[in-house]
């Protein structure tokens, strides 16, 4: 009897199917026929507002601005009159033709983007003559501070072919803009959101009749970064049109308060799709505005490195606070002579005065007594040669710290005493990025704690990654001397002395060994360094400044650092903040 039961059940199911056919074709038949003949259901993408990026004080750095483009619906693509459309839009026929040929199945074709309001009005008025043509609104990013902080905030762009293949991005429509640089890229998936969709019924003229269904958009999440945009702005202004970099950190958390790379560029150029001319101009600019000098350029640290030499010499007890060394303007080693920057010599100096006056001979000697391997050991401990891991750009430079082993391996030669001399004063093989110098001075300011540098405003107080094995006494001696550099007579950075706040720091000059020897212009002059922290008693900001071809640290870099520090500290004093 089973067969009979099965037959009953099947019959019943077929009756249901027949009933459904009755419902669709006879009861709803007229309406569905009308839909199929006169109407088209259309899907309109509703862009998702991208999350806003705020600075540490909640000041918005970007906004989303509506922008308009003309799209052609895929079903009209084969029947459309290219000639009349190219006239309407003022686009060449070949251009329209190509866009139609390169289309993806079922996706609307963008014929023209970035319409002005005038163009929108003009086309809107004539839409009914062009079936299949529509105006679509999208959101474009507007960067409120223009080129200020562009290297940090970044910009948006369309998917490049390589990204189109990556699994995480496969669902993103071809015309969508995604973060291509900086914070915009790094946190793209957080900021992006999910576009919504509206399914509408339109009549033969393309007029909207009613909304059939809607998929709500998911707005991107907002992001608070650690940058203080006012500080960033003041720092960039202080650079004028000089090239270089500045990094300001909170020494007790590792948060980046400002990250400057000059010259900069205007990310708004990219906001609606950069024009080829603009892109070539940026790419081929001899001053490399797209280079993030704070992380992607490494320079000899010059006298700034004396901080490292001092720490290793004091820790290894090669010298102490009382050690006196006489400088007569240089010293000789075999047939080589090593000069002090002060030709007349500094006379007999203790450690404190040697650092305050940045005496090269004192540090040659200190370096020789300490030995290159000990200097390298402390340098590495202090982060020289290891990148900070800031994923802001591809290719953060790691800097470089030489030692005996490296020399043998890399060059097949032994390490020479003379190389210890020049390394001790930050010349020769040793290289650092401005970010690393800022991290170094932070460690000095906070008494030996290494933090992860970060661009994101942390939700809770960050913990240091490690505590360096360096005595507090060494730091105190050093900090005292750094205060002297700025505030004592004869200090090399008197130009950074401030009435508002006590600053401690160190100048440096990095020699540029130009391949174009003999070029007289300032373009190949030495790079100027200055690194500092303030207030001296309770450090709240640590800063590193590099001015390319700026000459001396004291004259070129120190004033910029001072301006930035004063601006930051005075605002905090005003706000009554005491962190």
């Amino acid at each position: 009897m089973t067969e009979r039961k099965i037959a009953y059940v099947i019959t019943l199911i077929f009756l249901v199917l027949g009933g459904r056919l009755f419902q669709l074709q006879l009861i709803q038949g007229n309406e569905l026929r009308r839909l199929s003949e006169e109407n088209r259901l259309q899907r309109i993408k509703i862009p998702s507002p991208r999350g806003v990026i705020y600075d540490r004080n909640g000041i918005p750095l970007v906004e989303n601005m509506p922008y308009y483009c003309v799209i052609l619906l895929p079903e009209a693509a084969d029947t459309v009159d290219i000639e009349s459309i190219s006239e309407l839009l003022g686009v060449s026929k070949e251009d329209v033709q190509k866009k139609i040929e390169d289309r993806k199945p079922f996706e609307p074709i963008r014929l023209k983007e970035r319409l002005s309001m005038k163009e929108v009005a003009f086309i809107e008025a004539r839409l009914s003559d062009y079936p299949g043509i529509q105006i679509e609104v999208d959101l474009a990013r507007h960067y409120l501070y223009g080129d200020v902080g562009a290297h940090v905030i970044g910009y948006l762009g369309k998917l490049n072919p390589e990204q189109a293949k990556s699994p995480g991005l496969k669902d993103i429509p071809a015309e969508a803009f995604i973060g291509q640089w900086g914070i915009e890229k790094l946190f793209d998936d957080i900021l992006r959101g999910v576009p919504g969709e509206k399914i509408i019924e339109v009549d033969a003229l393309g007029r909207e009749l009613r909304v059939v269904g809607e998929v709500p958009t998911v707005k991107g999440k907002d992001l608070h970064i650690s940058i203080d945009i006012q500080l960033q702005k003041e720092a960039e202004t202080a650079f004028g049109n000089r090239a270089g970099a500045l990094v300001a950190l909170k020494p007790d958390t590792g948060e980046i308060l400002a990250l400057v790379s000059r010259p900069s560029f205007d990310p708004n150029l990219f906001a609606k799709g950069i024009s080829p001319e603009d892109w070539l101009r940026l790419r081929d600019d001899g001053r490399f505005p797209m280079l993030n000098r704070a992380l992607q350029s490494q320079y000899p640290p010059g006298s700034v490195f004396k901080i490292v030499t001092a720490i290793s010499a004091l820790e290894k007890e090669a010298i102490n606070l009382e050690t006196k060394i006489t400088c007569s303007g240089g010293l000789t080693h075999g047939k080589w002579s090593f000069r002090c920057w002060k030709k007349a010599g500094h006379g007999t100096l203790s450690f404190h005065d040697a650092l305050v006056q940045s005496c090269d001979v004192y540090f040659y000697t200190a370096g020789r007594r300490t030995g290159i391997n000990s200097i390298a050991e402390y340098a590495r401990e202090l982060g020289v040669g290891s990148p900070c891991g800031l994923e802001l750009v591809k290719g953060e430079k790691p800097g470089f710290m030489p030692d005996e082993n490296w020399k043998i391996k890399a060059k097949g030669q032994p390490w020479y005493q003379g190389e210890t001399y020049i390394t001790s004063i930050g010349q020769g093989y040793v290289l650092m990025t401005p970010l690393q110098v800022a991290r170094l001075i932070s460690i000095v300011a906070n008494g030996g704690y290494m933090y992860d540098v970060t661009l994101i405003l942390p939700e809770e107080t960050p913990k240091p990654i490690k505590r360096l094995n360096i005595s507090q006494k060494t730091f105190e001696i050093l900090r005292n001397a750094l205060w002297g550099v700025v505030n004592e007579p004869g200090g090399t950075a008197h130009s950074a002395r401030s009435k508002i706040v006590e600053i401690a720091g160190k100048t440096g000059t990095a020699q540029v060994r130009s391949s174009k020897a003999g070029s007289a212009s300032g373009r190949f002059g030495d790079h100027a360094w200055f690194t500092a922290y303030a207030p001296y008693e309770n450090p709240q900001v640590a800063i590193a400044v590099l001015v390319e071809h700026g000459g001396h640290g004291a004259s070129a870099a120190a004033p910029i650092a001072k301006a930035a520090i004063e601006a930051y500290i005075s605002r905090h004093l005003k706000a009554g903040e005491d962190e």
Partner: protein
Amino acid sequence: MNKYLIKNFDWFMLTTVLLISLIGVITIFSATRPLEEGGHSNFYIKQFIWVFIGIIGLITVVSFDYVWLGRASYIIYVLGIGLLLATYIIGRAGGGAQRWISLGVFSFQPSELFKLCFVVMFTRYLTLIKAPLSGWAVIKAFLAFTALPFFLLLKQPDLGTALILILLFAFLTLIRGVKRNVVFFLLIAGIISIPFLGNIFWDELRDYQKNRLVAFMEPDVDPSGIGYQITQSKVAIGSGKFLGKGFLKGTQGPFRFLPEKHTDFIFSMFAEEWGFLGSIVLLLIYLGFVYRSIDTAKNAKDDFGRLLATGITFMLSMYIVFNMGMAMGLLPIIGIPLPFMSYGGTALLSNFIAVGILISIRARRFDLFY
């Protein structure tokens, strides 16, 4: 084919199947016709050729006594599993570029042949063991014959066939007879494993399949416009009204609103052009076919024939019902083709072979000599 076979040959069944296949070919012809002047895609020609290959397959199967099928069933099953494994290992060539046209329908689909191997093997197995089955026997049968192919199919992913496989397993064991407490146990086990299996299912689904399910459950939340597809399918069917728009007058197909217009949604195309009248006639032809299969099962000369015919009937009925339910918006879209009509060579061939088995069982119903 001897005289005896020809005398007892089931012409009725062959006629219904051929009729549906030809309706399929002309519907494919109409659904894939170009909108403007230009080349007509050759789907309908290929389908037509496959119908011939199917007939040859059918006749070959009929000329053998199906008892041999039973004897060779284990070999057949192992070959089927081998095909599935090969698919799994080699991967599905031919996806990718044309993916949006053929969501999981390829020129050769081992899963389509496998479902038949499974029915043959499993019915044979059930007829050899003692009924009613105890709980352990059911579990053993599941682990031995069903679990592996089920997961292989999920991996492909061929959700439709995987689902049919599980239903076949449950249906056939119940039909064969299980101890009363086992029915209860199966129900409980089924209910308990729903969330668990559901999760596995869900993880194995491709995004588009998830979207389909979500779109069906909540048409308002429509992550990729699948709801739009369902809507358009209903519009196609409904707009046929009573008499249909007429052959080659359908607009929904050539307008290319559905990637699967000539495969999974062939019925919508047919209903648009032939209307309620045509659709009901088609339903009746299918129903006639199903009744005949049931009758074949009832009159089979032995247990194996009876269970095998029942299994094939159940399988094809599921395909028909699921596919039409999908097209009419009664069921979620899981990619199940309509037997004898949807474009697809492997499915057509394996369905013709299935019919061949049915005809073979019927032709030998008076045959009392083993």
